[in-house]
């Protein structure tokens, strides 16, 4: 595996982990950012591929806002 390919794979892994942590610890901010990006990509006049990507990126309606889902919960029956 070439160094360039290794760097690319590492970049994707680091990005995915960062996004997952943002979603966990800053759910509202992450939801808003995802929504903004999806609306930006879906605007009229954008190429069809970008609009499809925007549609795919559109976040679910409600963001989780409670402490549940912030990551530390260890047993919790209430946290789903």
């Amino acid at each position, binding site marked *: 595996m070439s160094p360039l390919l*290794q760097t690319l794979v590492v970049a994707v892994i680091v990005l995915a982990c960062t996004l997952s942590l943002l979603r966990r610890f800053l759910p509202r901010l992450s939801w808003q950012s995802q929504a903004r990006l999806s609306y930006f990509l879906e605007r009229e006049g954008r190429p069809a591929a970008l609009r499809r990507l925007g549609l795919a990126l559109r976040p679910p309606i409600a963001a989780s806002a409670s402490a549940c889902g912030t*990551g*530390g919960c260890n047993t919790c029956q209430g946290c789903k």
Partner: protein
Amino acid sequence: MSALNIALVGNPNCGKTALFNRLTGSRQKVANYAGVTVERKEGLFRTPGGRSVRVLDLPGAYSLDATSPDEAITRDVCRGALPGEPVPDLLVCVVDATNLRLHLRFVLELRRLGRPMLLALNLMDQARRRGITIDVAALQARLGMPVVETVAVKRDGAEALVAMLDGAVPPAPEAGEDHGDLHAQVSALLAEAVTMPERTSRLDERLDRWLLHPVWGLVILAAVMFLVFQAVFSWAGPLQDTLAGWISVLGESMGGALPDGPLRSLVQDGLFAGLGTVMEFLPQILLLFTFILALEESGYLPRAAFLLDRPMRAAGLTGRSFIPLLSSFACAIPGIMATRSIQDPRDRLTTILVAPLMTCSARLPVYTLLIGAFIPDQPVWGVFNLQGLVLFALYVAGIVSAMGAAWVIQKLRHTEGEHVLLLELPSYRLPNLLDLGIGLWERARIFLRRVTGIILSLTVLLWFLSSYPAPPEGATLPAIDYSLAGRIGRWMEPLFAPIGFNWQICIALIPGLAAREVAVAALATVYALSAANDAEAITSLSPLIAADWSLATALSLLVWYVYAPQCLSTIAVIKRETNSWKQAGFATGYLFALAYLASLVTYQLTAWLMS
């Protein structure tokens, strides 16, 4: 056929959650003490006749006159007054067949609501074993509602109930002479439909004579807890070594298969050094929970709450705080949520504020790592193991600190709570192996989910911050010294130097804020990246820190973890449960101050003694 909404309702500890699990195939926590369920839970199942049934598992309540937030949920759902919650089509009143005198009172109270109901006589196997005879037909006739027998922990224990749900919804029972004294009505019901043996529980009495003894009871409780921690260290050792060996072999072969480069470093120094080190502690965690779950199921824990009521009262708490504090040994979050069963708001707040001091399972990897590295594995008095003794001492330190903090908080607030403990002592029973297995599987799943979720993400991010920016041309120090994490660690070092923490520990403290175990993964990654060569990088973390740290530093870090509120989720839950940023801020502030102060004293004192 339309979906049927049913609600499982009844006194605490009558087996509602076990029945819920039996009906829906869910895996909610079951224990032999009151107050396990503090909020409504929902599940779905389909009867053999094809009917969809939506089941609500409600918190246990002794009366519709709610005295705590969890009882209020039950009252509101039963009355159809909870916003957004449809009125149940059928109330399934679950009662403990071995304790009908207490449980039927609530059934009669529920009957006054005039809603369709049926009665599930749970724990019928135990009732029969004790010689309790229940005339189901007579009970049915007297109550005016269908009565079915259930054994929620048995595979086919809910068949009669499911068959009943397949049919038409029974009509609401007639209130009849329901406005009199409920206790008198229960007595009349029992006289007509139930035959009790002369002594229902000779074994319970015999055991309680010792286990609830004001002196021997406490001695036995201390011995039980002590043995648990001894066992965690001695029995889990071989399993931990085997797991560590497998992880090491896998890490070496994976790393060897990749050419030199960033991906290899991520796999070797990040994933295997970091995550692998945390994974090694799975046997300890499972062993600890085997004991906790077995004690929960046996019915011993409410006795422990009863025994500890007096010491807890001295600290300004009540025995009611025991269950939330005990739950906090697994994780502070369910513990804080369990405080909903405490009626007095001041007692509840104090319990919430001290719950993070209980030693949650996430601290176990940190404790085990440091004890393994610095405390010699030697016998004490020929029977005990020194490492186990230290672990026990750390748990005791958490408990004693919580009591001390509660005392100070109550004194500062000039408040005195209601010190009345009303507690139902369930019968002793042998732990059900299936429930024990489910509980352990749940623990393992939660741990693995954390390892492959938040701990993985944080470890990868920490590896990235510890590897970039790359060192300049001609750099002589390890790459981590030039990285962002290295710089942050060096920047924090002066603040933590008085308590003996080096820059590597300072780096580990930051991701440890998200989950305590990540501190172990972070230390492993930082030391792997600081290594001079590959052979050193794949060395186990324990000998590396043993060579690099002083005993004073190790003890200081152990003490830090007894106190520090290093879990953002706990703080978030404190905010949610108290609805106050002030209380969340207070908890964070006092716990950090306590951690720093205790570590400072420990470090300076040990350094002085060693000099």
